[in-house]
């Protein structure tokens, strides 16, 4: 449970003519994590070469490529499709040969027609853009061009200028800009152009069209509309095809991808002219059945053996080995880093502690119930294994939140009918101020206790990790150093107890002072600290710099109270604004107006509480996750393990 699944290194050797049945069997079993063969890396593999893909790999890849172009056109993703009914592989193969080419052809035709139409549309729009400046010009376009002795210049101008040469001008102001058309004899053209250039003139071409610009624009707009209609017709057809064939296409994609993967896997094997060798990892308890299956599949011609694991040289892939309760938390572990093979796997501890911390922060029956409902409601939206894991974590966290809500006696910031079992977090907000207010010192000390215990657990795991991973004298000193950290922390704690009486903590202030004003417990505490520091220094003197983190890490658990109380405060403020300030005053004298105000008050309350639920979820989730990652993991956990990724696939749409 606290260690990853035990792995064995397996070597498979067989003649090349049984490579296909062996690969097929490996793929079907989905157990073998292939270790890629690298040429010239190991001496014992001298003379071996990387294998060639199986025959037919090229065609299958091409077929897959064509299929993917269709699924891309449909923007079809296998995650979006509910696997309704699995199609048998042989039936699927038949349909791939018979139906797929027709579908591909149809989609290809539709796509090419659509892209032609889209190009047409673009051309038409360009023409309209060119014509638009001339829409208000009262002469037909052919009159603006084709003169031998005259030059026509058209364009936009910031403001009108007077051209003191013989010319005809048309000027109109509009939102697009101020259009100026000048007709002048050819000999004045350079002079006009110079004057216009000085006035920041932007020339535009005169469109090569017949009739008036306005009529032409109207005609083109009609054309564009009909092209657009045709495009949307084609898009509808594509959508209809997608709806009809989505299930079949994702099944084809799955089958062809499997075929390609199988056909290309010899690229990861070591081969000679007549044989091949595959090295890889399988869970230890599956070595024997897998061996038997492979031998049977190859007709007794495959040789399978277990190799010894070379410590420090082999990179063993890591697969979690957790009880079903802890399995969703593997998601949180993978976000940080997968444990190394030799390391303790703290998933189980995190799966228990994370919801407790979340509950301590967001201890509220109402919010817990809302999140619980959300964790079930979102299941339709969040598909895939990771989404499911996240929702399972959310479910556990919200149940814990309800539990602590009962203990804290809180529901949407209101007090429940019973007194708070844990130190109260109720603030005096609003008119009904009075009572004691939150029991801050008790809450803080509760957090310090949680922190001390959590960190001690982390250090103990650190001792275990060093005991498992290290060797020789380093192993002893590393274990003692971890013990030293625990001792310094508890030593400080004992010294504090001997100096100050505190609620929820042992009171050691009663002892008489012995030496230098220090009482017996204080002296014991001091000795423990000194011994702890010695252990730490023995391993690495630089670690002394880290000593203040003992204090800061323990105090960091105060966030369990801090973030929690701020969420309670927001809830109470929302209640006070919505109920105390908006709704209650209206209840004294009910009129139509007051009913409207009450409805507004209810809306304010609902929006406010939803907002606070989201805030509480993000705050509670991130803060308790951080306590795991920063305060807990840094004491013992390194991570960096390689994910166990067996050769094979989880079939969703097809079956053998």
């Amino acid at each position, binding site marked *: 449970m606290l260690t990853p699944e035990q792995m064995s290194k397996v070597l498979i050797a067989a003649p090349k003519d049984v490579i296909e049945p062996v690969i097929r069997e490996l793929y079907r079993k989905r157990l073998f994590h292939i270790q890629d063969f690298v040429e010239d890396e190991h001496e014992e593999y001298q003379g071996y070469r990387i294998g060639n893909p199986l025959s037919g790999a090229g065609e299958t890849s091409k077929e897959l490529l064509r299929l993917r172009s269709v699924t891309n056109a449909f923007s079809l993703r296998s995650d979006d499709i509910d696997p309704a009914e699995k199609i048998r592989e042989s039936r699927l193969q038949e349909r791939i040969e018979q139906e797929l080419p027709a579908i591909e052809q149809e989609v290809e035709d539709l796509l090419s027609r659509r892209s032609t139409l889209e190009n047409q549309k673009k051309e038409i729009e360009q023409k309209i853009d060119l014509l638009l400046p001339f829409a208000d010009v009262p002469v037909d376009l052919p009159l603006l061009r084709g003169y031998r002795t005259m030059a026509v210049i058209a364009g936009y101008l910031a403001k009108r200028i007077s051209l003191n040469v013989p010319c005809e001008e048309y000027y109109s102001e509009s939102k697009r800009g101020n259009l100026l058309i000048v007709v002048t004899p050819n000999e004045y053209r350079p002079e006009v152009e110079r004057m216009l250039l000085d006035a920041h003139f932007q020339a535009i071409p005169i469109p090569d069209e017949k009739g008036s610009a306005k009529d032409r624009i109207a005609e083109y707009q009609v054309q564009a509309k009909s092209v657009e209609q045709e495009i949307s017709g084609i898009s509808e057809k594509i959508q209809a095809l997608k709806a009809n064939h989505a299930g079949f296409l994702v099944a084809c994609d799955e089958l062809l991808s499997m075929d390609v993967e199988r056909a290309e896997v010899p690229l990861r094997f070591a081969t000679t002219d007549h044989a091949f060798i595959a090295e890889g990892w399988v869970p230890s308890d599956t070595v024997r059945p897998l061996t038997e299956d492979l031998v049977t599949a190859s007709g007794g011609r495959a040789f399978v053996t277990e190799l010894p694991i070379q410590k420090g040289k082999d990179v063993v892939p890591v697969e979690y080995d957790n009880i079903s309760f802890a399995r969703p938390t593997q998601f949180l572990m993978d*976000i940080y*880093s997968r444990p190394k093979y030799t390391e303790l796997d703290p998933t189980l501890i995190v799966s228990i502690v994370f919801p407790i911390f979340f509950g301590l922060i967001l201890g509220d029956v109402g919010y817990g119930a809302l999140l619980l409902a959300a964790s079930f409601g979102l299941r339709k939206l969040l598909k895939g294994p990771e989404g499911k894991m996240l929702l399972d974590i959310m479910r556990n966290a919200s149940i814990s939140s309800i539990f602590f809500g009962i203990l804290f006696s809180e529901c949407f910031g209101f007090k429940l009918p019973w007194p708070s079992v844990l130190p109260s977090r109720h603030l005096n907000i609003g008119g009904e101020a009075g009572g004691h*207010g939150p029991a*801050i*010192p008790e809450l*803080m000390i509760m957090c310090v206790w949680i922190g001390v215990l959590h960190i001690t657990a982390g250090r103990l795991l650190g001792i275990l990790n060093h005991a498992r991973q290290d060797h020789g004298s380093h192993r002893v000193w590393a274990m003692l150093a971890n013990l030293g950290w625990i001792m310094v922390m508890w030593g400080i704690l004992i010294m504090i107890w001997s100096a100050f009486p505190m609620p929820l903590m042992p009171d050691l202030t009663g002892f008489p002072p012995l030496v230098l004003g220090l009482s017996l417990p204080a002296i014991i505490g001091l000795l423990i600290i000194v011994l702890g520091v010695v252990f730490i220094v023995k391993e690495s003197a630089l670690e002394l710099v880290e000593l203040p983190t003992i204090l800061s890490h323990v105090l960091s658990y*105060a966030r369990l*109270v*801090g973030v929690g109380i701020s969420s309670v405060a927001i809830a109470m403020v929302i209640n006070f604004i919505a109920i105390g300030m908006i709704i209650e005053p209206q209840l004294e004298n009910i009129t139509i107006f007051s009913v409207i105000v009450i409805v507004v008050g209810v809306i304010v309350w609902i929006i406010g509480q939803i907002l606070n639920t989201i805030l509480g979820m993000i705050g509670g989730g991130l803060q308790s996750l*951080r306590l795991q990652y920063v305060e807990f993991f840094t004491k013992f956990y390194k991570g960096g393990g390689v994910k166990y990724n067996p050769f094979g696939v989880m079939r969703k749409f097809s079956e053998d």
Partner: protein
Amino acid sequence: MAVEVGTAITDVAVMEASQLGLRAMAAAIAVGSTGIASAAAEMVIGSAAVGATAENKDVFGLVLLLTVIPETIVIFGLVVALLLIF
């Protein structure tokens, strides 16, 4: 005589009120200034974190962790403020 006692009572009341006010001010400064400090630190880390995640999605867990590290500053501020007030 009565006037002097009355003045003394008022003085004490004023003193208590101003002490309460000063404590509230101290709490406000504790939360406010640490909040600004956390925000400034997280701003820099957060933008770098987004950049790093865009380059390589695997570092998400690590950068999330780095981003929330300065949060401790404001939590300490909040703790100090709560202890001041209650």
